[in-house]
């Protein structure tokens, strides 16, 4: 490592770490070298911006709002003949396909997955907007932004670097659910539940139940939904509904 490395010298100059002789020499070079002066100015501005954490946080908030408002919406004219013909052919194909499939696989798994599908709601934005849930960890925040941008694999990598952070675990679980990797999702939710003292247990239990359901682990799913239904939490009514649906299945 060279102590007189140019970029290191710039850093030490910007952060006031140069000693007297070095400082004098550096300032002389700055006066002579316009490129160096430009680089120092740019680097100084960048460092000032980055180290202003309050401002960075505000920009992140604005970025999140922007991201959530720029999702693409596809408009389809349902009155168009082509669209109607296309939809009709899809329905016929689906009907034929479903008939054929039912000869090969049991109905139960499919309907469990249907139940899962009808109850799973992406709660990511609801969680990050909750006033009682916050994180000062920039990696977790970056992961949340990636999650909200539907970059689930990249988000998981961020959350993985914070294995003790329960918010990261919850988001990681949700990201795995989005990727339909329910075994991995289960692990994340179980960690939160076993961690006990945290405010995300309700969400963890609910999503663990849904992951079991999607994974066709009916016994485990029934047990956890029964527990949720017996408590006075946010999901007790829905858990009760799922138990009824499973019983009628």
């Amino acid at each position, binding site marked *: 490592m060279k102590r007189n490395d140019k970029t290191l010298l710039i850093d030490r100059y910007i952060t006031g770490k140069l000693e007297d002789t070095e400082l004098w020499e550096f300032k002389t070079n700055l006066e002579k070298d316009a490129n160096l002066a430009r680089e120092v100015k740019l680097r100084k501005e960048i460092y000032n911006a980055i180290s202003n954490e309050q401002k960075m946080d*505000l*920009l992140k908030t*604005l970025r999140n709002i922007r991201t959530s408002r720029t999702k693409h919406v596809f408009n389809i004219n349902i009155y168009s003949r082509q669209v109607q013909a296309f939809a009709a052919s899809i329905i016929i194909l689906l009907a034929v396909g479903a008939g054929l499939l039912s000869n090969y696989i049991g109905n139960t798994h499919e309907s469990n997955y249907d139940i899962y599908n009808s109850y799973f709601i992406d709660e990511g934005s609801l969680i990050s907007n909750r006033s009682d849930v916050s994180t000062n960890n920039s990696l977790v925040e970056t992961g949340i932004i990636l999650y909200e941008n539907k970059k689930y694999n990249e988000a998981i990598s961020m959350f993985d670097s914070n294995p003790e952070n329960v918010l990261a675990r919850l988001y990681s679980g949700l990201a795995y659910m989005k990727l339909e990797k329910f075994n991995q999702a289960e692990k994340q939710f179980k960690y939160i539940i076993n961690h006990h003292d945290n405010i995300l247990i309700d969400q963890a239990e609910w999503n663990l139940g849904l992951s079991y359901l999607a994974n066709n682990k009916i016994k485990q799913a029934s047990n956890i939904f029964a527990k949720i239904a017996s408590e006075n939490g946010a999901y007790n009514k829905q858990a009760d509904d799922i138990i009824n649906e499973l019983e009628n299945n």
Partner: protein
Amino acid sequence: MLQYTTQEILKGILENNSIIIQSIYDNYFHGIKKFIEKFGGSKDDALDVFQDGIIVIYEQMKSGEIKQISNFKGYFFSICKFKWFNTIRNGKFEEFTNIDFEDILPAFEYKQVSDSWSEVFEKENRVKVYFNSFMELSSTCQMMIRYVAYGWAIEDIAAEMNFSVVYTYRKRQLCLNKLIEIVTQKLNENNKL
């Protein structure tokens, strides 16, 4: 209508209260977008302007420059419209270059306009580029550059991140080069607009 008082809104912006900022968006973005679309802009432009408007108010609150504001909406709209007016006057949209700002703004909004906003916008454009470039880096690079910006010695960064000193030295160099490259590219793109 916003359910918060002007003082609560200003405090909310200063303290990065996401509920209040979201509420400003929900209540006022549509109006800003309509104005910008009327003068040649898009929803994306409106999102940019909304962000710039909030940042100007944040900076004014920070520096104590902000005067008594009785009507947040009027003040915020003045800033956003002034920002867009500057953009179109700077040649992005030829058909609007001869418009006089006073003619297109309600009198109570025009009264609040300050030339000092232009300086803040210019400075903030660069800060936005730095922020967006920084966010494109890997998490390791972000962390490392943040420590560099705080003035930490390589040895301290290495210890904090559990890397060897030699690796930290190399990685720091790579991260900085990458950041400068992205920043330069974005600044050049902005200058071309």
